[in-house]
């Protein structure tokens, strides 16, 4: 347990450690030059995307839970699809589409960037909000109605406040993704802190300075989590046992048309138009015979993406299950420890990447790594960093679905003579499988899109689809980025489908 925790928390400790010995001159120089602008851009972007995703995600979730219209179920599923769309791909498409009306300079604005991120990240809020609306007691709304609230007023005064903890969780995930993003912001010339870390690391080659800026990101993440906890506050769900949710209200033909139009617009902006554009570009690349990079062809990149995403997902799930098992048998101190070693979810990708690099190089310099196994630049080191970043999803997915198993069930298994291991493998895990599956799907879709960690730590000759897109877009070679973008989208759709399946089977979304 302690070993697992140490291993998972180490890269972050390393980053924080750099605070102990701050390089004063670096800080001073940063403050005088780029840092204030970076902080301002980061805050503006986070605020804008949070507003956008909350409005869009909550609104759409309300539409598909409170109202009934033709194709409602299908619409409910399709609206999750943008989860597979990386921000840097959507950004690339809209950058081009809008550069005619807005001009080459006008399009590179923080607001267009925020809009692009909103359309790729709203599914997080949507999923949380939908789950919250679905499980809410219809009786509370009925009571509000009988106390004089119109349906709309009941939504604002009861449904929305009751869903607040879930909305906060979804919003926290969105904010974390915005803090972590490096591909999209670079495209729109928005210099956020994460972008600064990458620039200083690559362009200036100043690793110490990059590490120090990374601390700012940790600070922002901690602030975010605190804000989320505060938002949850003392107010919690009242007991809602045995009550049914309000049956959805059937919309008039006109209303149905409006609902479908709204959903279709979102899907057009987030998926349909981009795919059409990407296909056109891919055909252009095909004609120009640019369907491969110096490293290899589509199959080569695809293979690397699948290997890395597969291995990272598997490791995260195994580590997550192991953590859950140990924590659940240790009671309260275990729970605290569990939180500590899954703090990685609150830490942006670039920080994890830098922490891992610093940690591993330091260890290697002192000859503490057996046989160069985890040397920076190896497959194992990359998977290690991805696990640190995403293990929390595995842990919380398993833990939350196991928490729903009635204690009597476990007690029955124990009294029937099953040892803890047997209880875990024969009773707890099978009962929690929908939750584990949902967690695995979320991790998979995230690792397929993932950029900063993969970019910094990928082994030589292991370029992934996302790295290909990054390299092509950073040189504005749009048509060459189209093919890998389509591939990422196609690969990402598989875990999204799995996620939907798991959610239908009773899994919960967790953060």
């Amino acid at each position: 347990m302690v070993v697992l925790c140490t291993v998972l928390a180490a890269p972050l400790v390393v980053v924080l450690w750099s605070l102990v010995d701050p390089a004063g001159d670096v800080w001073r120089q940063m403050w005088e030059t780029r840092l204030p602008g970076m902080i301002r851009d980061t805050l503006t972007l986070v605020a804008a995307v949070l507003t956008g995703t909350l409005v869009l995600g909550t609104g759409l979730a309300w539409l598909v839970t409170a109202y009934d219209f033709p194709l409602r179920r299908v619409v409910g599923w399709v609206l999750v699809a943008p989860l597979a769309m990386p921000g840097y791909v959507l950004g690339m498409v809209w950058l081009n589409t809008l550069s005619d009306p807005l001009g080459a300079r006008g399009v590179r604005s923080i607001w267009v960037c925020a809009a692009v991120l909103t359309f790729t990240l709203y599914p997080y809020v949507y999923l949380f909000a939908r789950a919250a609306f679905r499980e809410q007691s219809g009786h509370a709304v009925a009571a509000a109605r009988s106390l004089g609230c119109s349906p709309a007023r009941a939504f604002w005064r009861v449904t929305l406040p009751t869903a607040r903890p879930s909305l906060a969780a979804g919003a926290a995930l969105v904010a974390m993704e915005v803090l972590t993003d490096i591909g999209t912001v670079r495209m729109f010339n928005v210099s956020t802190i994460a972008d600064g870390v990458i620039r200083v690391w690559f362009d200036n080659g100043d690793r110490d300075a990059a590490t120090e800026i990374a601390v700012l990101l940790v600070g922002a993440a901690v602030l975010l989590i605190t804000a989320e906890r505060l938002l949850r506050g003392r107010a919690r769900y009242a007991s809602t046992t045995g009550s049914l949710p309000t049956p959805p209200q059937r919309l008039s033909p006109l209303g149905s048309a409006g609902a479908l139009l709204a959903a279709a617009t979102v899907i057009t902006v987030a998926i349909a138009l981009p795919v059409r554009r990407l296909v056109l570009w891919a055909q252009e690349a095909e004609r120009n015979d640019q369907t491969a990079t110096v490293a290899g062809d589509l199959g080569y990149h695809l293979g690397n993406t699948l290997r890395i995403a597969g291995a990272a997902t598997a490791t995260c799930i195994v580590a997550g299950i192991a953590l859950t098992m140990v924590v659940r048998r240790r009671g309260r101190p275990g729970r605290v420890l569990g939180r500590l070693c899954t703090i990685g979810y609150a830490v942006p990708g670039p920080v994890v990447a830098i922490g891992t690099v610093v940690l591993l190089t330091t260890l290697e310099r002192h000859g503490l790594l057996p046989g160069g196994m985890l040397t920076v630049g190896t497959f194992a080191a990359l998977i290690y960093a991805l696990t640190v970043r995403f293990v929390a999803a595995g842990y919380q997915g398993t833990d939350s679905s196991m928490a729903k198993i009635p204690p009597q069930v476990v007690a029955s298994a124990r009294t029937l003579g099953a040892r803890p291991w047997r209880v875990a493998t024969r009773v707890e895990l099978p009962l929690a499988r929908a939750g584990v599956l949902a967690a695995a799907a979320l991790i998979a879709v995230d690792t397929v899109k993932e950029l900063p960690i993969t970019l910094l730590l990928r082994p030589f000759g292991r370029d992934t689809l996302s790295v290909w897109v990054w390299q092509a877009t950073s040189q504005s070679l749009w048509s060459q980025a189209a093919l890998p973008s389509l591939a990422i989208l196609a690969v990402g759709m598989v875990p999204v489908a799995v996620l939907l399946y798991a959610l239908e089977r009773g899994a919960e979304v967790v953060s």
Partner: protein
Amino acid sequence: MTAVVNEAAHELTALHRGRDADAIAAPMLRVEGVVRRFAGRPVVDGVSLDIDAGEQVVLVGPSGCGKSTLLRTIAGLDRADEGRIVLDGRDVSAIPAERRRVGLVFQDHALFGHLRVADNIAFGLKDLSRRERSARVAELLDLVQLSKLARRYPHELSGGEQQRVALARALAPRPAVVLLDEPFASLDERLRDELRGDVTAVLRDEHATALFVTHDRTEALAVGDRLAVMRDGRLIQVDRPQVVFDHPADRFTADFMATTSFLPAEDGGVYAARPHQLAVERGGADRVISRTYLGGGQQYLVRRSDGTEVVAGVAPDGPLESGDPCTIRTVATLHHLPPERGS
């Protein structure tokens, strides 16, 4: 014998009706021929019911008999396919829930988890000034004896306390009628008995007109001024609890209200016998099948010579064992039920 019993029953009913006739005001709630269909099947099938101001009526019936749907229809959460709902002289059939002046109390309390107790109670008081509102909240907190918990959140309360908050919240805007849907079902038995008395008292203090829904027959007998028995979407009998208990309208109601044995009558109908009205005597053509100890006494399941089974609660010859030969004798005037269609 039957004639005498029926006459008595009618007399009691007439006495009760007399009260209605004397009342000058129209009923506070009038349900008129309400029909509600789901997928073509009537769940509420032509229900009519009048409730007077200040009266407490219990709607009782087995699960799935349509009582909750009827309640939702009255509250305006569901629309009737046919019929009318008249509240305080006003036809509210087409009026949405929020403008009907109906209070609702649910089994799961349905408190607003994000609001403190006082704010939950104040929720429906939006038309009052700030001072009037806090006065009304204080009054209700006092009424349900929760003044000390006003600043708490719902999840920090016990089940019984939550239930009282839900009641106070529903009563606060002085609704025309309070509807209570299985209000005590989520509480444990002892608390339920205690709270039942409290709630009835609070409703009386507020002069509230109330309609309870329950599937618990003991509760139904204990709570209301009148009892309405519902089955398959129809009201079978509406009367004072004692009348319904002693003179049920049909075999279903008789059996639903308490354990009932049916003895054949000369006219093809039956006599409904409760265990305390049947004695089991030693020797004869009948046979004891089993004996159950019920704390207060014994109950015997007896197979009669004609093959029917009855439950008897009186044993003048001392305890009998299963297998003993015996005879069933009636020790009270039995309630007669005429032949039923289709039975």
